[in-house]
Every structure is written in structure tokens, then in C-alpha cells.
């Protein structure tokens, strides 16, 4: 069907996207790679010299480095756990015949559309504030000591804020998958005397596996780069308690003006993201083959 003519035309139609994305990937990344082996500080831009792998050594011997890797993983895994377990539970609940289903769905999906700086500031000031926040009011009402979230459990606080933003996404995807589950199959299982628990494990969960895979893949891409939520709540602190890899590199680059060091960090982040990607693809990617 595809003649030479249409082939040529379709190449022409695809070319701009491919070329632009190729430039977007190759140019800045090679610059990052180049800078990463240079002594290059914006405070002293005239004095650039070859540094070899020194930047990498400085970056990974920085006490903040392993902490930031750990924090990055903690955020990704923590948010994934909350959103997938919570999302499945909420989806199962909302999938039932309930009054006001439309309104319930609208409320549940809403946090997904809140821009990250707003979400972070609202949670920081109005929900988690140790003296004026709603949670503090609730604690005092129950006769408990209010929690100073960003001093006592800063990383957990960040995870909760980010999880609140992503829970709707997981719920919506899982709900959509649930609704495509064949009702007759469910009834048949029920007739055969399968209890709610075993129906969930043997019927519902396998059916959801594809949706769960998609949720993990998409969320991981975004969760590795969590930035605004940290910037406006803790600014990476206290100490390095909430500094993830993204935030550490940002700090090195635009607060330390250390182009070489930040670039070495950037390359490490690319390698790290790709390790996570390969791991993800192998662990869950099989689910996506049609």
C-alpha cells in the first residue's frame, strides 16, 4: 500500500519531531558531559581547565550524595506504595454502585490538577503547620501534641504531599481498568462460591496488573524529578534530610555556581534514571507486551 511517494511524504511529516527531539537530547547532554570533566565555576568563569574525573569524585564523596540517592528512592517507593495500595482500595470502593458517584469522582481526581507549588504551600501552611495547621488543631482537639512535620518527619511530609497529588492519577487509572472487568466473570466466580478475598486475588488483581504497571512506569518518571514540592516546603533541609538527587544538582549548579560539579551530578542522574528504567522495564515491562 505504501508507495515510494507516500513513504517519502511520511518521512517528511515525521522529520521535524524527530530532529527537534534529537537536538533536545543530544546537544545539552553532550554539553553536560563536556562540562562534567572541566573545572568550571561561574564565579570565576575565565579560569576553565580540564579536571578529568575530579568532579565525579567530589560529587560522589559529598556526604549529601548518598543521602540524596536514598531520599530519591524513598520518595519514589513511598509514593508508589501509597498511591497503588490506596488507589486500588479507593477504586474498588468507588467502583460499586453508590449515590453521587459523579461528584465523588470529581473530588477524588481534583488534587491531580493542582500545580505543585500550590499543593506544597497549602499543605505546608494550612495543613501541616505545627501551630496553625489543621492537623495541629486536630491533635490538640484529641489532646495530643501537634507534630512539627517539617522538623520531625521532613521526608515523610514531602512523600505525603507528593502522594496526595498522585493518588488521584493511580485511582483513576485503576478505576478505569476495574470497570473493564467482565461482570459475568465476577458473577461466575461468585456462583462458584469464591469469597471476596480470593476473587480479588485470583480475578481482580491479575486484571489490574497491566494498569498497575502503567501507573508505576509513568509515576516513576515524574517522581524521580520531584522538585517544586521540596523547594517551597523544606528547601532540601533540615540539613540534607529532604535533598533528592534533583535538588542536590540544582543546589550545586545555581547556588554554588559549580558548573563542573553540577554537570557530573547531572550525568550521574542520567545513569541513575536509566538504571531505574531498565530495572522497571525488566521487572514490570513484560506486562505491557500485547
Amino acid at each position: 500500500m505504501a508507495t515510494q511517494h507516500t513513504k517519502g511524504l511520511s518521512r517528511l511529516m515525521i522529520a521535524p519531531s524527530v530532529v527537534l527531539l534529537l537536538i533536545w537530547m543530544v546537544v545539552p547532554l553532550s554539553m553536560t558531559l563536556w562540562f562534567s570533566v572541566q573545572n568550571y565555576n561561574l564565579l570565576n568563569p575565565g579560569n576553565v581547565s580540564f579536571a578529568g574525573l575530579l568532579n565525579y569524585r567530589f560529587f560522589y564523596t559529598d556526604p549529601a550524595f548518598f543521602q540524596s540517592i536514598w531520599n530519591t528512592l524513598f520518595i519514589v517507593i513511598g509514593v508508589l506504595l501509597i498511591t497503588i495500595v490506596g488507589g486500588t482500595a479507593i477504586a474498588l470502593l468507588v467502583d460499586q454502585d453508590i449515590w453521587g458517584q459523579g461528584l465523588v469522582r470529581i473530588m477524588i481526581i481534583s488534587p491531580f490538577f493542582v500545580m505543585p507549588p500550590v499543593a506544597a504551600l497549602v499543605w505546608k501552611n494550612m495543613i501541616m503547620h505545627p501551630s496553625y495547621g489543621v492537623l495541629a488543631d486536630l491533635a490538640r482537639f484529641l489532646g495530643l501534641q501537634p507534630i512539627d512535620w517539617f522538623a520531625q518527619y521532613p521526608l515523610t511530609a514531602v512523600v505525603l504531599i507528593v502522594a496526595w497529588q498522585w493518588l488521584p492519577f493511580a485511582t483513576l487509572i485503576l478505576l478505569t481498568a476495574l470497570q473493564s472487568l467482565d461482570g459475568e466473570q465476577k458473577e461466575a466466580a461468585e456462583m462458584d462460591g469464591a469469597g471476596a478475598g480470593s476473587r480479588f486475588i485470583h480475578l481482580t488483581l491479575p486484571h489490574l496488573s497491566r494498569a498497575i504497571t502503567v501507573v508505576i512506569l509513568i509515576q516513576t518518571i515524574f517522581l524521580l524529578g520531584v522538585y517544586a514540592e521540596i523547594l517551597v516546603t523544606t528547601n532540601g533541609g533540615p540539613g540534607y534530610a529532604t535533598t533528592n538527587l534533583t535538588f542536590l544538582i540544582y543546589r550545586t549548579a545555581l547556588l554554588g555556581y559549580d558548573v563542573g560539579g553540577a554537570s557530573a551530578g547531572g550525568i550521574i542522574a542520567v545513569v541513575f534514571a536509566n538504571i531505574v528504567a531498565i530495572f522497571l522495564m525488566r521487572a514490570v515491562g513484560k506486562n505491557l507486551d500485547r
Partner: protein
Amino acid sequence: MARAISPRRKAIATLLSWAIALLLFFPILYTIITSVKTEVEAISGFNLIPSFTFENYIEVETQRDYWKPFTNSVLLSIGSTFVALIISVPAAWAMAFSPTKRTKDVLMWMLSTKMMPSVAVLVPIYLMFRDLRLLDTHFGLIAILMLINLPIVVWMLYTYFREIPGEILEAARMDGATLWNEIIHVLMPVALPGITSTMLLNIILAWNEAFWTIRLTTANAAPLTAFIASFSSPQGLFWAKLSAASTLAIAPILIMGWFSQKQLVRGLTFGAVK
């Protein structure tokens, strides 16, 4: 879909669902309520019945020059989405209707560009922007926002276009339709819903994008993400005003999101979940 269940179970499920929904919606609801409180009310404990003052909105609008970041947000999100569509509609169309052996690979490669951490290219982009005088300009940010969303736009359009039966086009051609007629009467009606959903979702993504917008702007081209983030500086707590600004910043996208939630699933998962 949902099966008939006993009234008792329905009542319990309804109650539980509403409790969870209200819990998740609470921070948004409370922001809206706080936006019509006075500053004193805002920090004087839990209170769901405010005095309904609109002075915060007036203050945000007049003193803080709210409309500039708002206009920037509109410009950047619509501009970047528009450019992305112009580039990607032909590409997605070609891939959907004359696929080759490499089409899938090209699509996968495009998506893999999303795995590149933004922060890894922050330094070179920042330096390039500085040298080209693109920092804090609409043009620069539209280009970045367009590029980071381009893979998603191509994928979404491809997913939608692939579901259009090719016979429609052939039938139109057989009936002797001119190319122009073919585009207007055959292509547009079938492709438009997919293009519209893609457009909506990308406006949402661009509107809420915070990393590049905060880092590459200061005043002139700063959209609402950067404007709101600037409230985080510790110089006094203006919660009621912050709430008013936040409400205005999220309202358009929230409403847009409510209307497009069904397409959101298909679009963001590339049809992998139905």
C-alpha cells in the same frame, strides 16, 4: 459495570466513598474557604464558616499584579501546546497511517527522551539561554515546554489516530473527493476529538510544569507556578492572600480537568488501559 447490591451495603459504600472523597478534596476546599477569610481568621484555628470577604482577591489582583503571571501562564501553556500540535499532528498521522517496521522504535525512542532528568540538562540550557538572552522570555519557555511535552503529544495523537479506520479515507477517495474536501469533511471530523483531548491535557501539563518555569524566569515571563512559589519566602505569612492567589491559579485547570477526566486515562496511558 456496578452490580446491584443490597441497600445496606450501598449506604455503607456511599458513606465511605464520600468520607474519602471529602478527605482528599479537603486541602482544595480549605484553600477556597481560606481565600474568603480575613488574615486574622486564617490563622486563628480551624473554621469552615468564614466572613466571606473578597478583599484578598482584590489585594492579590491590585497590589501583587496577579494578571501578569496569569497571562504568562495562558500564553505559555497555549503557545507551547499549539506549536507542539503543529509539529506532531503530521508526524502522528504519518506513523498511524503508513507505519513501517521502525515506527514502533521511533515512538519508543521519543518516549525514552522523557527518561532524561530535567536537572541533568539544567546547566547547559541555563547557560545557552543566558548567552542567547532567552532567560525570562516567553519564546524560550514556550520552546522548552513544547519539547518536554512533545513525546507525549505525539504518542497521544498516534493512539487516537490509530483507531481511525483507514477505509474511511479510501472510501472518500473512491467517491472522488478532492484533497481539500477529504481534509475538511473526512479527516477533521474523525481526528478532531483526539486532537482536542490532546490539546486539553497538554495545556494542563504545561500550566502545572514547575521545574523549568521556576528556574528560567524571574519577572517578565514568570507564570503562576513561579509566582506562587515566590510566596514561600519566609517574609510574613499571608495565608488568606496566598489562598486567593492559589484558588485563582488552580481554578481554570481544575475545571478543565473535571471535563477531561475520561480522556485523561486514555491519553496519559496511551490507550494501554481501557
